[in-house]
């Protein structure tokens, strides 16, 4: 077994989710040779590669594809790159994370290799046996890969948690080599062009990756009142979420929606205020480690999944929390 991990970097650092992908690779088999692939352009790429070389002692090699074609994560050149590197190295597995980056690129690479990818893997029990949630986590499906080609996976980083990257393990540095791009070809160039990236509020963590998520429901009654949720999130360094009902009522934009048709989150702490707990909402947050629910209605279904429930009026509870919660470190 040999695994290629398609890693992501931001500026000059390796993303922590990519270390989760390495952890997933390690759980495939004890004798797994792991290579990390990083692509991009400029000096930041090489700094990230140096970091990648010492991110985990089981990484034996870091491959770097340095070209303007990879300045932005466009699926067209990146999928071709995955095919090229896989075919050269004959890897049995290719793994990346299930973020918007991996979900965009991996299925396209799989099509080029004529194999079925397996996305959103949350468990690995054998080199070809995986568990993934279906129906937004309301069921778990065990899937066996039976193909002769390479096995392509995207994994949920929250299911393979790792501690933050430390750069003190210099003793175990993997070799870094450049990917030979002379046969890369240019048939995909120009069909897709990067225009711009608009960042969200940088003060607040991304809903999909946040350690803490604070969610408000329809009981907030107005966009104005919803600001209390935002304040609380700020205090805890948390991301803000909303139910479909709150979105439909116009309190917040749709991209904050947590649920079956919105974002699926699994933070360490999920706090729901004035959320009744509709099936489709529970589907989006049930894998959270600790769930807190505050609701006036003691019979609200949200209490059935909550670790800590508080029956009370959110308009009393939230101000009290704002006053009594410690500032984030």
């Amino acid at each position, binding site marked *: 077994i040999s695994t290629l991990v398609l890693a992501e970097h931001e500026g000059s650092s390796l993303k922590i989710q990519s270390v989760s992908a390495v952890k997933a690779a390690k759980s495939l088999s004890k004798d797994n040779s792991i290579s990390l692939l990083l692509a991009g352009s400029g000096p930041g790429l090489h700094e990230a590669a140096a970091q990648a070389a010492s991110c985990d002692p089981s990484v034996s090699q870091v491959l770097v594809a340095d070209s303007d074609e990879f300045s932005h994560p466009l699926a*067209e050149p990146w999928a071709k790159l995955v095919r090229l590197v896989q075919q050269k190295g004959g890897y049995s597995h290719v793994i990346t994370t299930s973020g918007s980056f991996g979900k*965009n690129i991996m299925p396209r690479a799989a099509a080029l290799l004529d194999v079925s990818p397996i996305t959103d893997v949350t468990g690995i029990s054998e080199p070809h046996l995986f568990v993934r949630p279906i129906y937004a986590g*309301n069921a778990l499906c065990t899937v*066996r890969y039976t193909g002769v080609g390479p096995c392509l996976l995207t994994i949920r980083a929250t299911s393979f948690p790792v501690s933050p990257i430390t750069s003190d393990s210099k003793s175990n540095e993997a070799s870094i080599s450049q990917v030979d791009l002379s046969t890369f070809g240019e048939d995909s160039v120009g069909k897709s062009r990067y*225009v711009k990236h608009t960042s969200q509020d940088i003060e607040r963590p991304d809903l999909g990756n946040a350690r803490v998520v604070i969610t408000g429901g329809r009981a907030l009654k107005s966009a104005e009142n919803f600001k209390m949720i935002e304040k609380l999130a700020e205090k805890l360094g948390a991301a803000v979420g909303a139910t479909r009902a709150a979105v439909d009522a116009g309190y917040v934009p749709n991209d904050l929606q947590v649920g079956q048709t919105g974002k699926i989150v699994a933070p360490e702490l999920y706090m729901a205020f004035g959320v009744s707990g509709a099936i489709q909402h529970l589907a989006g947050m049930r894998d959270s480690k*600790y769930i807190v629910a505050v609701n006036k209605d003691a019979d609200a279904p949200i209490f059935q999944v909550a670790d800590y429930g508080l029956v009370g009026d959110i308009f009393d509870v939230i101000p*009290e929390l704002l006053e009594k919660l410690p500032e984030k470190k």
Partner: protein
Amino acid sequence: MPLRNISLLLTLILSSLSHHNRSSNFNLFNPLPFHSHTHHRSSMKIMVAIKRVVDYAVKIRVKSDKSGVETQNVKMSMNPFCEIALEEALRIKESGLASEVVAVTMGMKQSVDTLRTGLAMGADRAIHVETSGQLYPLSVAKLLRALVELEKPGLLILGKQAIDDDCNQTGQMVAGLLNWPQGTFASKVVLDKEKQVVTVDREVDGGLETLCLDLPAVITTDLRLNQPRYATLPNIMKAKSKVIKKFTPQDLNVEIKSDIEEVQVTEPPKRKAGVIVSSVDELIDKLKNEARVI
């Protein structure tokens, strides 16, 4: 969803008043995000792939023999992301930038019902590739490629994922097979007929990414792209006479094979019962000292 039923009722009432009133109402609430400076009849065709799934409001049940999820006697609907895909295609056509919207699906006989819904929403015609047994995204992508080669659309729009298997693969895969550019998880689509490009805002982790794609291209839709319309009674009636063409995978020279196997489907682990705390102070104490999350 009560809200859904109310708006369906409203649409039905409005539609019985006057056709003109309804369309102006529609435009008032849903301003079209396109530059519609080209008012001449366009010849571009849009293909939309749609899937029949268990309705999003149904509480699913895992079968006791672990062979899957119960789909017998369960309400089935068009996948919500596919509704958004179809809505986007219809809006592009209504703005004068496309001439025809073709809805396509793959699967067993009953998938025709979902195509009828698509026709009632406003698709001009439909294609059903009838298959039996489990169909994975790689096969769907190959069938779609064959249909694209047959119909030659300028745009292929799909939902970003189906809410049953949650794969999020088919759009990317068919784009790869066709060597077309892809704009996945779209929350805004602006078509420029003159330049033959489409600009797509994509929902990515931590923000929006804007891409410009040469046509023909594949787009997959995210939730924020639009609010799909409801089929009106007159359009439901009209849809009954629209054409649904049938193919088999053999007709399209696609061999359905599979390299994955579903071993079992199980219930997710139940959460252990929690506790009800009596005050904010107790809650903070639990979070600090028991869960250690703050």
